[in-house]
Structures are given as C-alpha cells and as structure tokens.
C-alpha cells in the first residue's frame, strides 16, 4: 500500500513550521514575554559584566595621567587580589543566572507543551511527523531566545556604559574598547541563542512523543 507513496511524503517545508511558530508566539504573547524576560535579564547581566571588565582593562592600559589618577583613587589600577576575586565572583554569578534562565525556559516550554496537548495530538492525526512537532517547539524557543538576547545585550550595554560614565567620566568615551565589547556582544548572542534551544530540547521531545489519541481527550 504505502511503500511507493511513503517516499513521496514530503516532509513539511520549514517555512510552514516557521509560520506556525511565529503565530503561536504572537497569540501567546504574554507567556512569551515572561519567558523572554528571563533571557533578557540574564544576558543583560552577562553583557554588562563583560563591558565593565573590558572598559576597566582598556583604561588600565591607557597612558593618560588623569585616567591613572582616577583608577588609583579607586584602587583599580593594579591587578590586585581584590579585583581578581571580584571578577571571579561576577563570573560565578553570571553562570548562575544563565542556569536559572535555562531552567525558566525549560519550565515555561514544558507548560506550553502540556497545555497544547490537543493541538499536538490533532496535528499528528493530520499526518504530522514527530520531527515537525520538534521543529515547531525548537523554532518557537529560538525566536524568543534571539529576540530576548538582542534586547538583553543592548540593555546590558547601556546600563554598563551608564555606570562606567559615572565612575570614570568621559575617559570611557575617549578610550572605548570597541573590539572587546563587540566580542562580548558576539559571545552573549551565541550563549543566549544556544541556551534557548538547549532548554527547549526536552519539552520538544515530550511534545513529539505525544500520542495522537491525546487529541480525543475531552478533559485534562
């Protein structure tokens, strides 16, 4: 019966999955924003730490007596034990906040999957393959991840700049570490996006494994 025709079964074009994911986010905007706020905050934290460190490192290298005197007053001119300890602490905090963010996305996506049991079951009754279901949820999470990461990056950058301007004055603008900040930006973007996809893997798997018969359940 199905031997020849199964080969013809075209796996649904990615564009349809993209369309469905985008629409789902729009419809559940409130939920999406809550998920994204976690990413925004975590990435903002990451970016601001990175930017602050980059600014400080740059200023330390600068051969400008005014800058050096400001640094000396604040005790930031030497690569002291205290500074290194603070950096280590900040790194630890950033890692923690990213983990919290990951758990948050995981939980939020899992809730979403559970709520949409009927939709998933129905799509399977219409002939959707497991891979299509996985695509939908991974795409949804990636969209939210990318948008949240971008917002977080700019938020972190501006906050950090504001604080640096307050601490070091206009020297920050004069000696802005463009390259380092861009590198941090790239790193934040990568981490944020990858995090959203990884967090969604298990929920997407749960969704894909749902049986079509779930669509028939009248209550939940």
């Amino acid at each position, binding site marked *: 019966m199905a031997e020849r025709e199964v080969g013809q079964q075209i796996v649904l*074009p990615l564009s349809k999955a993209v369309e469905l994911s985008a629409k789902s986010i729009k419809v559940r905007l409130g939920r999406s924003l809550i998920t994204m706020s976690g990413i925004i905050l975590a990435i903002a934290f990451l970016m601001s730490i990175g930017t602050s460190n980059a600014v400080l490192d740059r200023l330390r290298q600068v051969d400008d007596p005014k800058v050096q005197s400001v640094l000396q007053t604040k005790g930031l001119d030497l690569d002291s034990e205290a500074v290194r300890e603070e950096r280590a602490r900040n790194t630890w905090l950033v890692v923690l906040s990213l983990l919290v963010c990951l758990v948050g996305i995981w939980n939020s996506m899992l809730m979403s999957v559970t709520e949409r049991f009927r939709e998933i079951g*129905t799509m399977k009754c*219409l002939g959707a393959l497991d891979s299509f279901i996985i695509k939908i949820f991974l795409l949804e999470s990636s969209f939210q991840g990318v948008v949240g990461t971008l917002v977080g990056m700019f938020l972190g950058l501006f906050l950090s700049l504001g604080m640096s301007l307050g601490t070091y004055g206009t020297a920050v603008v004069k000696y802005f570490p463009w390259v380092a900040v861009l590198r941090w930006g790239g790193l934040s973007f990568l981490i944020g996006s990858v995090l959203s996809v990884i967090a969604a893997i298990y929920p997407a798997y749960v969704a894909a494994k749902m049986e079509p018969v779930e*669509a028939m359940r009248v209550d939940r």
Partner: protein
Amino acid sequence: MARQTVVRTENVRKVYKMGVVEVEALKGVTLEIYAGEYISIMGPSGSGKTTLFNMIGALDKPTSGRVYIDEVDVAQLDAYELAWLRCRKIGYIFQTFNLIPVMSALENVMLPMIFAGMTSDDAREKAAALLDRVGLGDRLLHKPYELSGGQQQRVAVARAMANDPAIILADEPTGNLDLKTGTEIIELLREMNKESGVTIISATHDHKMLSVSDRVVWVRDGRVERIVNREDLHIEVGKIDGQAE
C-alpha cells in the same frame, strides 16, 4: 454480494493496567466495515466503544488480535507509514472540534493537504472549495474563536475531507452541539458519504445518528452485543422507546 472491506478487526483484545488492576476494555471483537457505508458504534460509557474506535482509527494498538485497514495490518506499520495513513487515508473529526487556534478556517483545512505534499496554491484552492461545500464560503479567513461550535465542526468536516480519505472517523461529532446544529452536522456527514462514497465510522451516544446509519454496532462490556442493519433499525427504536414506528 461481495463488498469491499475497508476496515477489519480480528479478535481484538485490549487490556489496560490501572495500577495493579488489569482492565479488559475489549474482550475479543471481530468486525468488518464495508467501503462506502455509514456505520455508527454505540454503547454506554465504559463499554469499550471508544477503545474500539481508537483501534479502528489506528490511534492505538491492540493487546492481541489484528486490525486491518485496507488489508494492511496496522500494528506492522512504522511511524512514517502511520503518519501517511492518518494523513491520506483517514480523516478525523473530534467532539471538541480541535481546530488549530492560531490558523484561519482556510489554513486549517489546508494543513493536511500541505502535509500530503500539495503546493500552497493548490491547497488553498481546494480548501476554499471544500469550505464552500460545507457552507462556510464567506468565512474562509475567520479564526476558530470567531466561529460558532457548529461552524467549527463544519470546518472540521471540510478538513477531514481534505485529502479525499477512504475513511472518516468521527468521535462524538455532535457531543458539544445543540439539537439543531447536531442534526445539521449529521446531515452533512451523510451528504459527504453519499456524494463521495467515503466510509463514515462514528462513535456516538447520539440517537439522531441512528436514522442515517447503514448499520449500527452496539457495544457493551467490551464486546459487540449486536449489529443492526438499517432496515431493522426502526423495529429497534420501536423496542427501545416502546412506541410503534
């Protein structure tokens, strides 16, 4: 008169484990469903009606016994083949309508066609024609929440017909509808059955379904109690109601 069998079950048993207890939902059901017929499976809650329905619709596998759809043993099919079966051969209608809420009526009807590999343009044309056939030609772009229950079920009927299936499986299609709307849906299904020869298998409590069914399978306690043909149905109903036909 040799009629083509579209679905066949052979001594199907289904056992569920509820904790420590084993519940035998189906106790050996052998049934033949012929192409083009409108057959209703009726029975009280807990009779095994829904379980039998799930077996026939390739939504569940029996504990023992076989289910053949078009002479193919459903239990032998892999995930791809099952998906193909559900996409091309069977159309499903649910009590809760189950339209995708983020998509319009048109897009809902198009979805199974896209799964089947149709181009968007062809799918759109065919979907519009189907929606027109069920009387929703002026509501193509409405989303499910903008449609009444009866209208949503009509969209569901159009969607079930999307890939010209051999079988339509309707689980309590009138369960969430009032008397008048329910009757309309039953009529619509009967029209589909007559026009295109699609086999309609319906699991239902609704006695309104009796008058359009070619055969009625009464299920009780995990077994087929009796199968009543259309001609004898009037006598049946007469017996139940205590009124002469």
